[in-house]
C-alpha cells in the first residue's frame, strides 16, 4: 500500500497548505461543536497520497446514525485512497466513457469485498462498560446495522491527463476552470441516502464514477455537507477564509463536522525540504515520542509502520506525540518537519517501540456533552395545579425523586461558608500583623 496521509479525527486541523508535484493542496478539518465540547472524534475523514505525477484523495462523512460512523469513514478513506493510487492503468481502456464504466464495476465489486474486514472491525470495537445501560443497548443495536459512510474520492493523473472521481452520498465536488469559474461534473447526482455500509457494501444505490479530461480543470474542491449553504464561498478560498468559515459554522445550531480539500493544479518547483528532526530516546514506560524542534516547521508528521508496512500518519503541531492507544505490537516511527512553503521534510531515522506501554487510567467516557449555553428560564418542576377530581389526597404512584440532591446542595453551602470564614480569618490575621 502506498504511503497515505491521514488527517487526525480526534482533533481539529485549521486550514493548512501542502505542496505536491501535481499542485498545491489546501485542507481543513473541523469537528462539530458537540464533538468538541464532548472531546469526541469527528466523523469526517480526509486522506491523500501523492506521487511524481499523480495525487489521490478521499473525503468521508461517517453516518452518525450508524455504529461509530468515524470507524467506517477512516476504514473507507484509507482503502479508497490506496485503491485509487494503485490503479492498474495498463489493464484499463483508453476511451474515457468505457474507462468510467469499467472503473465503476471494479469499484463496486471492491466496495463489497471490503465488507469482510470492515465487519470484523465493527465486531471487535469495544463498548465501554462504564456507559449507562441504555447507551450500551443503543450502541449494540447500531452494531447490528453496521458502520456507514458517504465519500467522495479522486485521482488526478498527469500522465493520463484525467481526473477520476467516485462518490456515494451528498458530499460535494466542485471543478473550476482557469478563470476560477465552476463547472459541473458531468451527470453528477448526489443522493443523501446512498452510502457505503460495513455490512452491505454500497447501500441504497451503487458507487458512481466519472472520468474528466484535465484540459479544462484548473482546480478541484471537495467538501462534506457540513459546509452547507456556505459552499459558494469556496470559490475564493484562502486559509484565512477557510478558518473564518469554520468558526462561523461552528456557532450554528446544526453545527456538523466539516472537511474541505482543495487542489490547485499548479505544478511548481518545491522549495528545499526542511531537515530531519532527531528523536529523543523514548522511555519504554511512557507512550510519548519527543524529537528536536526544526526551525521553520509549521507542523510535524509522524509515519507509523509495522513490519515494513505503512500503518498510518499522525500530524502534530508540537515536537512530541502521545501515541494512540489502539496501536499494538512492535511499531516503527519516523518523523518529518512540514511547512506550507516547502517540500515535505526529510524523514528522521526510525525508532521502534513495543506497544502498548503502561497507560494512565482512562477516565470514564464523557457520556453527554455539556449543554450549549442558552438564555432561558430554568426548566421547572411543575407540580399539578389541577383541582382534585375525587377529593382523595395525591399519592405517589412511582419512585419519588430522592432527597440526596437537596442534601448535597446543603453540604455545598456549608463548604462555601466554611471557606469564606477561613478566608476572612486569614485576611484578619495578615492585616492585623501589619
Amino acid at each position, binding site marked *: 500500500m502506498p504511503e497515505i496521509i491521514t488527517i487526525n479525527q480526534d482533533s481539529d486541523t485549521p486550514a493548512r497548505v501542502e505542496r505536491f508535484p501535481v499542485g498545491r493542496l489546501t485542507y481543513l478539518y473541523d469537528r*462539530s*461543536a*458537540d*464533538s468538541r465540547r*464532548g472531546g*469526541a*472524534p469527528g*466523523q469526517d475523514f480526509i486522506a491523500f497520497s501523492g506521487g511524481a505525477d499523480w495525487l489521490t484523495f478521499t473525503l468521508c462523512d461517517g453516518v*452518525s*446514525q450508524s455504529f*461509530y*460512523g*468515524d470507524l467506517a469513514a477512516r476504514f473507507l478513506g484509507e482503502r479508497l485512497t490506496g485503491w485509487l493510487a494503485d490503479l492498474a492503468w495498463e489493464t484499463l481502456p483508453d476511451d474515457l466513457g468505457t474507462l468510467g464504466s469499467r472503473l465503476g464495476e471494479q469499484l463496486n465489486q471492491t466496495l463489497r469485498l471490503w465488507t469482510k474486514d470492515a465487519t470484523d472491525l465493527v465486531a471487535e470495537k469495544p*463498548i*465501554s462498560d462504564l*456507559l*449507562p*445501560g*441504555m*447507551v450500551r*443497548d*443503543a*450502541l449494540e*443495536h*447500531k452494531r447490528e446495522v453496521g458502520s456507514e459512510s458517504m465519500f467522495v474520492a479522486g485521482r488526478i493523473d498527469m500522465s493520463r491527463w484525467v481526473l477520476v472521481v467516485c462518490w456515494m452520498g451528498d458530499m460535494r465536488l466542485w471543478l473550476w476552470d482557469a478563470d476560477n469559474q465552476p463547472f459541473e461534473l458531468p451527470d453528477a447526482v448526489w443522493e443523501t441516502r446512498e452510502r457505503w455500509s460495513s455490512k452491505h457494501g454500497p447501500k441504497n444505490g451503487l458507487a458512481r464514477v466519472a472520468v474528466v479530461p484535465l484540459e479544462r480543470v484548473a482546480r478541484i474542491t471537495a467538501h462534506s455537507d457540513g459546509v452547507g449553504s456556505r459552499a459558494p464561498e469556496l470559490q475564493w478560498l484562502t486559509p484565512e477564509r477557510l478558518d473564518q468559515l469554520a468558526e462561523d459554522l461552528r456557532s450554528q*445550531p*446544526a*453545527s*456538523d463536522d466539516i472537511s474541505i480539500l482543495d487542489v490547485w493544479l499548479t505544478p511548481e518547483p518545491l522549495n528545499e525540504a526542511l531537515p530531519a528532526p532527531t528523536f529523543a530516546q523514548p522511555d519504554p514506560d511512557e507512550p510519548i515520542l519527543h524529537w528536536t524542534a526544526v526551525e521553520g516547521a509549521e507542523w510535524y508528521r509522524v509515519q507509523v509502520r509495522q513490519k515494513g508496512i505503512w500503518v498510518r500518519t499522525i500530524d502534530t503541531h508540537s515536537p512530541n506525540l502521545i501515541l494512540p492507544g489502539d496501536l499494538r505490537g512492535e511499531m516503527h516511527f519516523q518523523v518529518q518537519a512540514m511547512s506550507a512553503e516547502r517540500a515535505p521534510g526529510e524523514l528522521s531515522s526510525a525508532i521502534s517501540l513495543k506497544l502498548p506501554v503502561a497507560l494512565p487510567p482512562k477516565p470514564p*467516557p*464523557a*457520556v*453527554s*456533552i455539556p*449543554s*450549549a449555553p*442558552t*438564555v*432561558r*428560564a430554568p*426548566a*421547572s*418542576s*411543575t*407540580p*399539578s*395545579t*389541577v383541582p*382534585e*377530581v*375525587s377529593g*382523595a389526597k*395525591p*399519592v*405517589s*404512584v*412511582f*419512585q419519588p*425523586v430522592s432527597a440526596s440532591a437537596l442534601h448535597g446542595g446543603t453540604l455545598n453551602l456549608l463548604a462555601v461558608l466554611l471557606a469564606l470564614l477561613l478566608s476572612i480569618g486569614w485576611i484578619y490575621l495578615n492585616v492585623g500583623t501589619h
Partner: protein
Amino acid sequence: MPYTAVATSTTPVLILYLLDISGSMSQMLGDKRRVEIVSDALQEIATEMVARSTKGELVSPRYRLAIYAYESQVHDVLGGIKTIDQFVRDGVPEFAPRGGTNTAGAFLAAEQLLLQELPYMSGHPAPLICHMTDGEYQGDDPTPIVQRIMGMGTNDGNVLVENIFISDKILKAPVEDAYAWQGITSEADLASDYARALLRMSSPLPESYRAEMQEFGYSLLSGAPMMFPAQTRDLIRMAFTMSGATPVA
C-alpha cells in the same frame, strides 16, 4: 416549510408524555399488563432516542422529555424536564395503576408547561405531546384544552398532539399489519364516539415525520391523523416510535 427544524443539542425538541395510569391499566393485554407494555414501549423509544442522539458514544441532548402520569391526579414523574442524556442515567420509571382518568388535568398541566417553555424555543422543532389512554376521560372535557394546545407552537409549527388509545373498540376493522397500515383515513373507520373525539384531538402527520417513520418501515400516509389504535404490541411500538420521529441533525 413546517416541521423541518432538526433536533440538535442547541435546539432540542420537547417531547411530553401524558400517560394514563388509571386502575384499568392493570388489565391484561396479551400476556402482560397494559401498564407494563407501556413501560416496555417507553424503554424502547428511549433507547431509540439515545441511538438518534448518539454520535460515537457521545449522547447529544437533542431530546428534552417530560412525563406526566395521570389518574385522578397528575404526577410529574421526572420532576421537570430532563434531557435525553439525563434520562438515560435515571432510567425509565415504573408505574402503579390506580384511580380515575383525569385527562383534562393532564392536558392542563401540559399546557402550563408549554406556556413556560415556548417563549424560549424559537428555532426549535415544534414540541410533541404523546398521550396514551385506555379509556374515556372522567371529569372535564379535555377537548378545549387540546385545541388551545394545538394552536400553540414555535416557528417550526404548531404543537403536535398524538393520541394512543389502548382498546379493541377503536376501529371497525382491526389492523392486521402495523407496517402496512396507512393510518386512519376517516371517522367512518372508527367504532366509538370516544375514538372519534380523540381523532379530533390528534394532529395531522407532517411529511417530515412520515419520512422518518418510513425509515423504520412504516407506511403511514402524510396527513393521516396522529392517532393510533394500540390493540397489539406492534401498534403500541409504532405509536411510541412516532413520538421520537422528529428529524435529527
